[in-house]
């Protein structure tokens, strides 16, 4: 990694030599290294079935790696007693919105705060302040079934943001939305990210989405994943969807497609 001079504290996430598989002979990750500096937006571009969800579970502490070390924030979280601490540090946004249908927008948004012991009143106040920014002003007392798909995803994102974690993991959050809404949500996410600059690991299989949003795109093309190809996206910010037609964007996209294509061939030893 070209930022090797940075100390470990400046990284939101460092993964070293991660090995994991559901069975010993069929590994999903084989010595994977990954480092994300604080405040960076990283997209992980991978075809389906490569073990994205498993990676999330490893990062949120629901699965224990066979070998390797996960550093989250400044903390080394390989010891089991720190597993809870690790969970608190990573805000996870699932693929489906997974809102509780029996809770209002506001009560859904504060779930993370509530579970970390913040008083209900304080948590609600905090969420209420953020609703307008998330395009949800006036919806605090609505139930999820009254919202559109895009709005539900924004509630889900707000819920992950409010968890108080230093880093967000977004698992294909827009894949279930139709094309127009997805573009709206991508532009909206760019706006919100501009304001908060949270560290984000965004998993997707949409090449345009990855390049549009991220500072850096990591491509996992072959299974088991032992290394990630890196594409640095030096497109200027703030960005809007218009840039997908720019020459630079298309060049980056071509490179990403090449990397994905190369991976589909059998790995040379």
């Amino acid at each position, binding site marked *: 990694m070209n930022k090797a001079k940075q100390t470990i504290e400046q990284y939101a996430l460092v993964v070293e030599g991660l090995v994991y598989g559901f069975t010993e002979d069929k590994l999903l990750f084989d010595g994977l290294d990954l480092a994300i500096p604080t405040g960076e937006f990283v997209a992980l571009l991978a075809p389906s079935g490569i073990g994205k969800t498993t990676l999330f579970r490893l990062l949120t502490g629901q699965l224990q790696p066979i070998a390797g070390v996960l550093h989250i924030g400044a903390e080394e979280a390989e010891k089991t007693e720190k597993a809870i601490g690790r969970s608190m540090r990573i805000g996870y946004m*699932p693929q489906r919105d997974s809102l*509780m*249908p*029996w809770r209002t927008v506001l009560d859904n948004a504060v779930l993370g705060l509530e579970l970390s012991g913040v008083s209900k009143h304080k948590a609600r106040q905090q969420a209420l302040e953020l609703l307008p920014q998330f395009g949800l002003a006036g*919806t605090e007392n609505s139930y999820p079934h009254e919202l559109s798909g895009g709005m539900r995803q924004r509630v889900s994102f707000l819920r992950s943001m409010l*968890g108080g974690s230093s880093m967000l993991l977004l698992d294909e959050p827009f894949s279930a939305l139709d094309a*127009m809404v997805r573009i709206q949500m991508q532009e909206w996410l760019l706006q919100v990210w501009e304001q908060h600059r949270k560290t984000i690991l965004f998993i997707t299989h949409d090449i345009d989405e990855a390049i549009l949003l991220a500072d850096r795109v990591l491509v996992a093309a072959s299974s088991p994943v032992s290394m990630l190809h890196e594409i640095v996206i030096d497109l200027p910010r703030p960005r809007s969807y218009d840039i997908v037609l720019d020459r630079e964007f298309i060049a980056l996209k071509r490179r990403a497609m090449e990397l994905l294509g190369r991976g589909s061939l059998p790995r040379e030893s």
Partner: protein
Amino acid sequence: MNSSAKAALKVGRDDTQDVSSEINARKATDKQTHKPVHKQIRHKLLANFPLLAFILLLAIVWEGLTRLLPIPHYIIPRLSAVLQSLVEHAPVLAKHFVITLNESIIGLMISVLLGSLCALLIDSIKIAQRTLYPVIIASQTIPIIALSPIMVMWFGYELWSKVSVVVLFTFFPITVNTIAGLRAADPDIGELMRSMGASKGDLFWKWKLPSAVPHFFTGLKMAATISVGGATLGEWLGSEAGLGMYTKRASNLLQGEAVFTGVLLLSAMGIMLFLTVQLIERIVKGERRY
């Protein structure tokens, strides 16, 4: 990119203002609160008109056939005679009605407690799932009617023998539906909560339990309708009062009108209990949609 496409892609702030008005509009159309009350009633009557007409038709056919054909009154009494008997014996019937209703409600409440408890045990403890669940399922192959006399032997001719038969009838639907509800809890929400550091208690109170609410009420509604059957059977086996006892005695005396009066009242009681549970369900759920 042309300008109209750009406008369509504009995000965030632009639709922020529209959101609340859009929601309010949806709520308004959902509830139709703007309609005056008498129009709502008229609307309901119109919607239920086919049902009402059908019931009226059945009543006319009943009355007509029993008048035209030489059917003895102890086989099928005339509807008019049944209604007459209902009015004449209203005070006595009311007393029996309350007794049977009381047995049904107490039985239901015991089933709710026992059933929910069993469901919780089975869902949360592996060993209970391996032992208790198969036994509860298998127990349903026992014909409850055959078991009911034992309840009379155990609990005598007082209230509790009837209540115990009601519990036998209603325990199963409540338990099985509540288990189904606990299992239907969205695993993605559970995983999300765990990633947020939720404790076992959090998972139960904030995820499992609310998820089970709709299934629980499905079970309770089924139980409410069959509870009356349980109470009636209990009274047949041995009782001094109640509508079940009333119909049995009337049947022994070949009083067709009285039997039909009792049956009508029992079914009315079942409907009443069902509607009550439905009302409680609506109050509990409020505006939420599961």
